[in-house]
């Protein structure tokens, strides 16, 4: 489930960008430490494989609809956590660029939701604990199912969290969560079944492909996973608070800061933060809303006060749009062919 750019506020999108970028850097370092160059092409191929596998749909029994593999757990089983994380992240980058799945700002969130959980949580702390390196089919089955379901549920939870924290959608946290979790439970079961079936198929026909999994690679630290989960739970609590009112993160930040003011703590820090944002003016104008009275005016009051949004505002903006189109047309016509280099004519 890809989250889309337009549902995210820059603060939330940016934070997850930072987290995912750090994880990529971390994994890249780990992988280059392993110094097994022969696996680099394999990573590339398997990343592309995830893509291709998603084109083969199957019918989901009893529903009349069809689904496809998301592949996170499968790739981790084949490549180990670090390589799998990098491969999955690269798939998501390409999907965002070429398939309009998600988007640039949402990339951080999507990498986190779809790659972090299978690679760094579900595989090392669920699959391996249940199945270990055992070849017993029962243990493998239990391991894959649990791990797949858990990664999907955690991912879905994060989608809800990120969306409500952004406050662009009006859906309340708990409603949204109640909507998402059951769906992803089903998707998780299907994912687990398919992963299991694919793995046992490969075990039978080309067992050498599964070697990397059996040769235990170094595993991510438990503390990292625990810490992340704690942070996300906390986020959930905040969201639950905030989502009873619009403007999720901003509102809750306001509320928190208000409480802090009441308690007379951290006043300076908050002021500094707010004024910094004011001054840069570039960071979301949400900074204005952090002061509670603005919220009262724009978000909570029932009267239309936003001066930007009026009929004339919309008409104005539409004419700018038309003008821009016309300007482009003029620019195109006015230049002789030879002057119109390719996107970058310096490249030969």
């Amino acid at each position, binding site marked *: 489930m890809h989250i889309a750019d337009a549902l*995210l506020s820059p603060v939330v999108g940016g934070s997850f960008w930072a987290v995912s970028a750090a994880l990529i850097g971390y994994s890249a370092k780990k992988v280059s430490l392993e110094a097994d160059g022969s696996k680099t092409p394999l990573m590339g191929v398997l990343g592309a*494989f995830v893509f291709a596998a998603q084109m*083969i749909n199957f019918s989901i029994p009893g529903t009349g609809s069809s689904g496809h593999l998301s592949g996170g757990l499968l790739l981790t089983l084949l490549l180990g956590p670090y390589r799998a994380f990098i491969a999955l992240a690269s798939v998501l980058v390409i999907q965002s660029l070429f398939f309009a799945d998600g988007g640039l700002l949402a990339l951080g969130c999507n990498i986190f939701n779809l790659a972090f959980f299978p690679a760094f949580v579900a595989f090392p702390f669920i699959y391996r604990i249940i199945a270990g390196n055992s070849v017993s089919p029962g243990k493998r089955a239990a391991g894959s199912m649990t791990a797949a379901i858990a990664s999907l549920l955690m991912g879905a939870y994060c989608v809800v969290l990120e969306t409500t924290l952004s406050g662009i959608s009006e859906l309340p946290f708990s409603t949204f969560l109640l909507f998402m979790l059951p769906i992803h439970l089903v998707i998780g079961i299907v994912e687990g079944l398919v992963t299991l079936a*694919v793995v046992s198929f490969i075990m039978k026909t080309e067992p050498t492909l599964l070697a990397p999994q059996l040769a235990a690679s170094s595993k991510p630290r438990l503390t990292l996973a625990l810490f992340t989960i704690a942070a996300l739970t906390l986020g959930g609590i905040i969201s639950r608070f905030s989502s009873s009112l619009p403007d999720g993160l901003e509102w809750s930040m306001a509320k928190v800061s208000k409480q802090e003011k009441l308690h007379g703590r951290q006043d300076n820090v908050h002021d500094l933060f707010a004024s910094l944002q004011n001054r840069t003016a570039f960071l979301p104008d949400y900074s204005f809303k952090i002061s509670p009275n603005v919220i009262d005016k724009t978000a909570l009051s029932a009267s239309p006060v936003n001066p930007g949004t009026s009929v004339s505002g919309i008409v104005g903006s539409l004419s700018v749009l038309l003008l821009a189109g*016309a300007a*482009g047309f003029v620019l195109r016509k006015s230049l002789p062919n030879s002057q119109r280099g390719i*996107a970058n004519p310096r490249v030969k």
Partner: protein
Amino acid sequence: MKDIVVQNRNDQTPTLFLSIGDQTALILSAIFLFCVLSVPKYNLPAVITYASFPVLVITAAHIPVKPLLHRLLLLSPFVLIMAAANPWLDRRPFLDLFGMTISGGMISGMVIVVKTMVAITSLQLLTLLVPFYRLALALKRVGVPELFVTQLLLVYRYSFLLAEEAVSMKRARDMRSFDGKGKDLFTTAKLIGSLLIRTTSRAEKIYRAMTARGFQRRLPEKTEMPSFTRVDIATLVFSFLSLMAVRMLFIH
């Protein structure tokens, strides 16, 4: 989905009146997206005004509009549901339009849709104007780890091959599947397993084909480009100023 893959590969690189470097294009797109996406939830005019940037590029660079529109029609249902929920959940009157009351949710829902379209379009433009391998090199220059960039290039390169492989396997299956028999989860899982095996053997064969023709680890780098020129800097400054101007005008 496959059509989209195909489309991108066949299109000639469109032309633009400005010649800016790839990093500049990348950075500009990022700044632009950031501006668009930080527009407050009820400010429709600002989002529409921002839409004029991609529109300018489309007309100036002579980019075929039809495929772009086609892509926009594929808006993720998830986004649409979220956008549609807003008018439902937020019914506070916001605007009076010829006696019709427009609610806050309607506006914010529309803002979501327009933002999505603008975001999608601008990424499409980036990928149309800058071929992928150059985009990847640009990423390397802005500090993305080399390992990751190589990975991106490999995934991209193999995707086309494997997409075709997957499509032909799916076709072979569909040709002999009837009444839903043959398309079930477990048959498909086997199919995916075979795809995986084929994938790796295909990769091996490609590797053979490459080494047979003198390939040694690195892809030949076809590009040598200066990092920043005056044109780049001018473009960056000018775009930045106009993006800020829109903010000043529309976002109070």
